[in-house]
């Protein structure tokens, strides 16, 4: 026996939880909404040596896959295999399974099942993994893409935070009727005292430092603002990764190391005062396939709006869904440090303009991007699926399917 009770709902994510990453913040919102609708459930996530492996919290059971496997794919496959074992035990009582990635989705979808399924697409591994693993083999990427495709086609419903992502899925043949946009949200941040070590005037960048975030562009832009002697750049990174260390080196190379303050893994209670007292928040996203084709819904932009901090961001389709140029901030051509520097300089010289943007930002966040609104939309998706829970098996593989598919065994022909 792996579980202490029989869950009616499962939320599965190949992500560590809880952490200070955006994925974790998302899980912390969505999983409780699912469990609220179904009277509790099972949360299956990734753990590490510091996190409990098994928790029972009132009507929620949490299982963290914690076997230390250094290879990402080996870890992902083992994660899915353990999920299959949990499903063996739990599937009779399950009414719904919500998952965030194909490593969770394949074990959920490939078996005969009566439960409804929701695929939450925040990102597609076939697009994002090559950034993290540039040497990924084309054949391997095809397999990842096939698994993704299988999940997109077999899931009853798909939710995604970005219209750009929805358009990509629909253009790939997924029926628009089964894709719902559930935007990310942000809690309003009241005015907060300035952190004692904060400079008088500073820009802020916060979040992870993956290549698609464009932090290089920001550092290049900041180097062009050297004449603004009192201005500082504060970078609040979600983890001191190899890329974070590379960014620090880049700042040194540009001669701006003394004007950049680095802060790592701040809890939200410490990050919010830094954010709320910044002159501007910068989101210099690159014009790459991850941002332009796949889409994204950067929490950093939403949280900046909710804190009333004007945003200077890259002019990309998913960003336009959140920020209107000249209203809550400025949108500038991506990957152009000179353009970014010019937009920042202009706003720094227009305090009244910034004040108007700040008010507009708070208003926009309160109107369009609250978690309450997002969770209402999500619960609407769950409710529409409830009646299907008692319907006959959703997956009816034939004999050939059963022969070809093993655990994680998606047919490549689906690609």
């Amino acid at each position, binding site marked *: 026996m792996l579980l202490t009770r029989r869950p009616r709902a499962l939320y599965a994510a190949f992500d560590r939880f809880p952490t200070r990453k955006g994925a974790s913040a998302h899980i912390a919102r969505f999983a409780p909404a699912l469990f609220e609708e179904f009277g509790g459930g099972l949360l299956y996530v990734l753990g590490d040596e510091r996190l409990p492996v098994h928790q029972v*919290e009132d009507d929620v059971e949490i299982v963290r896959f914690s076997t230390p496997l250094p290879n990402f794919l080996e870890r992902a496959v083992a994660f899915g295999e353990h999920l299959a074992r949990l499903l063996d035990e739990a599937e009779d009582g399950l009414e719904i399974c919500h998952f965030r990635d194909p490593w969770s989705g394949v074990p959920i979808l490939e078996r005969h099942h009566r439960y409804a399924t929701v695929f939450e697409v925040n990102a597609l591994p076939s697009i994002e993994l090559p950034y993290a693993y540039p040497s990924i083999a084309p054949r*391997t990427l095809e397999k990842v893409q096939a698994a993704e495709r299988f999940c997109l086609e077999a899931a009853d419903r798909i939710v995604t935070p970005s219209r750009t992502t929805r358009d990509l899925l629909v253009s790939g043949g997924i029926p628009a009727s089964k894709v719902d946009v559930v935007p990310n949200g942000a809690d309003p941040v009241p005015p907060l005292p300035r952190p004692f070590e904060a400079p008088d005037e500073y820009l802020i960048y916060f979040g992870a430092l993956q290549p698609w975030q464009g932090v290089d562009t920001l550092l290049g832009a900041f180097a062009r603002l050297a004449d603004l002697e009192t201005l500082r750049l504060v970078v609040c990174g979600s983890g001191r990764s190899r890329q974070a260390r590379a960014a620090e080196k880049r700042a040194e190379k540009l001669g701006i190391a003394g004007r950049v303050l680095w802060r790592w893994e701040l809890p939200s209670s410490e990050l919010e005062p830094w954010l709320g007292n910044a002159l501007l928040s910068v989101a210099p996203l690159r014009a790459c396939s991850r941002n332009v084709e796949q889409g994204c819904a950067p929490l950093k932009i939403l949280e900046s709006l909710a804190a009333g901090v004007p945003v200077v961001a890259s002019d990309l389709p998913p960003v336009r869904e959140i920020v209107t140029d000249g209203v809550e901030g400025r949108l500038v051509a991506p990957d152009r440090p000179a353009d970014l520097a010019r937009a920042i300089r202009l706003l720094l010289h227009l305090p009244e303009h910034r004040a108007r943007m700040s008010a507009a930002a708070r208003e926009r966040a309160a109107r369009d991007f609250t978690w309450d609104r997002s969770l209402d939309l999500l619960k609407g998706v769950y409710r529409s699926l409830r009646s299907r829970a008692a319907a006959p098996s959703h997956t009816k593989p034939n004999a050939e399917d059963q022969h070809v598919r093993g655990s994680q065994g998606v047919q490549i022909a689906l690609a």
Partner: protein
Amino acid sequence: MSGCECKSGFFSLRDCDGAPASSCSACGRAVCTRHLSPASGFTECLDCHARAAQQPEGEPGAKGAAPAGEAPLDDEWTYGARHRFYSSGYAPIYAGSRHSTYYDSYDTRSFDETDSGGSEAEEPAAGFGDS
């Protein structure tokens, strides 16, 4: 014994501190009734019981693992032993996920950290959204 040494909470974890009922036979921590595993017959904490269930069969610590000093001749044990041997630095042969035939050793080599171009995913336990 002071309070239960297990963790509680959903997004914010804290010490349970419940009244200890026993100590875990695997890790020795003081554990309250809420954190004792019913499936273990209330002898292990939930964490230890779940951790053992996640070990590949035949690995040390797994349920039904071979006794120390013995080398049973079943396939599962052989796979586990071979994986440990090859992952000890001798050769990059992958035999970890016995039940999976979808991804093979050629696929997993793409994700060896030494071959990656550097990423947030360098953290040893990172998942997809952590990248």
